[in-house]
């Protein structure tokens, strides 16, 4: 594979260090610092037929990362799951209530509130200054997915909270102030439940924009599919709650939710893991790769169990558990993949080199089409990887 790549990219010579051992040179290539050390670009990149195969070698500043890896801890990965779970279960609750399935409604509402509480904890705990979390509410900024997310989560929280509290109505006494609450809560809860369900899809998908709207190479590159991964994962985890909590005769919609959610998630994850060239690598290698593979396997098991075990409460519950675990694994896998891509400068440099080369080639071929062609800063013959072939 490699020789072919190099044949296809003669400009590699420009990027790769010349042979060591230059006469009279006091510096060998290695002594010249990490800046000259060649870095091999990945294990073949998986798809030899792609024109996007980046050059194999590049130079970096002592191998240091260029973009900074996120400083977020796994709190944020956990929030990706709990946020999705809250969204998925509130949709489950709304559907269950609308179609007369009380078990789905109850489980959905209570899980949504629990997941929301956990989400809030994770988000605030991850702040460098947790006591200043209210500063999030100073502004509403469409260019900041985190700001939008704060408002989405706040709206969802109020609605889902009301819906969950309304579940306590039957245990309240029939008289007095609490009796009034007992009568008022159910309609308030229903309104809250539908409001939460209306916000839920936004809650489940904005987190994909949150990750993609960074310079973290593999997150940003995945922006077209990441919302589908997260939407699918949220649906699957909501379905998991339904399968765990509802008796078999009420769990039918949860099974269909599981199938659709898994399909969305698997489609998205497959695209993310295969179509991003070198930027798919971090999702296949290391811990991220293991987590995503585990997530895929558990999703498949969960869906199979949900479909085949429709008469067995135990099999259904196990499938639900499997789907929930799959969602956790997928979220942590996506999170870790992005972090890994930020830590290795090759994921920053190689795609950008490729972009420059393509632009220079377009400018050389067409000339007229290159409105955004940036060639002015490239002195003749010094083309920054630019004299593409």
């Amino acid at each position, binding site marked *: 594979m490699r020789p072919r790549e190099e044949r296809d990219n003669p400009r590699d010579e420009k990027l790769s260090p010349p042979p060591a051992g230059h006469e*009279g040179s006091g510096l060998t290539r290695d002594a010249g*610092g990490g*800046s000259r050390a060649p870095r091999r670009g990945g294990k073949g990149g998986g798809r030899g037929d792609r024109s996007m195969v980046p050059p194999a070698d590049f130079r970096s500043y002592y191998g*240091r990362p*260029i973009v900074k890896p996120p*400083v977020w801890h796994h709190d944020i990965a956990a929030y990706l799951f709990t946020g999705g779970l809250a969204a998925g279960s509130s949709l489950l609750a709304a559907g269950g209530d609308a179609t007369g399935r009380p078990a789905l409604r109850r489980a959905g509402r209570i899980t949504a509130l629990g997941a929301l509480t956990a989400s809030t904890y994770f988000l605030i705990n991850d702040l460098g200054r947790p006591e200043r979390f209210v500063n999030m509410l100073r502004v509403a900024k469409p260019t900041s997915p985190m700001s939008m*997310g704060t408002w989405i989560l706040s709206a969802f929280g109020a609605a889902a909270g009301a819906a969950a509290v309304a579940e306590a109505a039957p245990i309240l006494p029939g008289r007095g102030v609490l009796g009034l609450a007992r009568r008022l809560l159910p309609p308030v809860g229903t309104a809250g439940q539908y409001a939460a369900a209306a916000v839920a899809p936004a809650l489940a998908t904005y987190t994909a924009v949150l990750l993609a709207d960074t310079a973290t190479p593999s*997150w940003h590159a995945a922006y077209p599919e990441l919302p589908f991964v997260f939407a699918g994962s949220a649906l699957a985890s909501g379905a998991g709650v339904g399968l765990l909590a509802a008796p078999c005769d009420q769990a039918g919609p949860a099974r269909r939710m599981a199938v659709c959610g898994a399909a969305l998630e698997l489609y998205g994850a497959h695209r993310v893991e295969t179509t991003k060239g070198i930027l798919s690598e971090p999702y296949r290698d290391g811990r991220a790769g293991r987590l995503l593979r585990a997530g895929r396997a558990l999703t498949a098991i969960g869906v199979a169990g949900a479909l085949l075990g429709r008469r067995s409460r135990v099999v259904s519950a196990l499938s639900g558990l499997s789907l929930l675990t799959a969602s956790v694994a997928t979220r942590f896998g996506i999170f870790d993949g992005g972090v890994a891509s930020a830590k290795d400068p090759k994921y920053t440099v190689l795609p950008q080199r490729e972009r420059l080369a393509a632009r220079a080639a377009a400018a050389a071929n067409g000339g007229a089409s290159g409105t955004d062609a940036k060639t002015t800063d490239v002195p003749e013959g010094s083309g920054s990887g630019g004299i593409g072939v």
Partner: protein
Amino acid sequence: MAGPNSLYGPLDPAPDAGYVDAPPRMGFFTDTSVCIGCKACEVACKEWNLVPDDGFNLLGTSYDNTGGLTANSWRHVAFIEQPAARSGHGTDTPGAFAGMPTGPSASAHTAVVAAGTAQDTGTSPGVPAAPDALAAAATIKAPGTGTQFLGMPGSDLPGRTMDAPRSDFRWLMMSNVCKHCTHAGCLDVCPTGALFRTEFGTVVVQEDVCNGCGYCIPACPYGVIDQRKDDGRAWKCTLCYDRIGDGLTPACAKACPTESIQFGELDELRARAAHRLEKLHEQGVEEARLYGHDPDDGVGGDGAFFLLLDEPEVYGLPPDPVVTTRDLPAMWKRAGVAALAMAATIVVSFAGRRR
């Protein structure tokens, strides 16, 4: 306020941010071809801005013991050691150093060469460069033969011992800093409004507002802004907002002894940089190139731009940075489609037959 280029493309950032009658955009032009690696900029920055130390580490990366731009290093001098003949494009030709001395860096032989190449300064005392220096050199005793290096400092005069052969080694030194992008990813994604655009077109963190969410850190395409570990908040170069408001030069530029760091109105700096580049090319420094000066680049041009002598990635800079929010409208659209898919899934799941 929000124009068609608010997210991407050429723009004057201060008016776009809502300033009326904004002063000219200010910035840095860092000319690395005259940087001597003294790190005065790093020190001046720390002293003026009261930036804590970054640990006192020996990193083993040439003279760079700072490591990079962090919350506690708002200027960072990069040191790159490389064989000059292989440095960049255009000098890969054999014989780039033809005619240059190949002996030790200071010897009688190189003295002869130097004597013949010195410029006429017009103040010659009338003594011609020794024409018989070579003969004189021959009289210099050859380096002692019976001695052995025992790990102690030599006691001989410089130039009289044969040590390392002359190499084609060169230094690259660059003082890196926040780029104060026209389209600043950090500023776009900040959820609290702690990061803001100043009237000078620079980007500054308000430390009393920042709650340490950390979103700006992965959003920066240059990896500049960073979280201070014991403090939790994000910190970066302010382009000495407190100084330039009073008409002062930022601390680093003030301290720079070679004017490698130049501060001024961005338009003027760009013109100056173009002139300098032209001059360097005239002098045969083919590998000189500007970085971040172009308003048509992925971040709409940097407020702090550079003249480099090699590819950007050699200095730890991204070769073609693009502000991540350029794609934000497309991202929200995709998220919207995914959200609709979710809603449709729920409808389909619950609309099925009752069982």
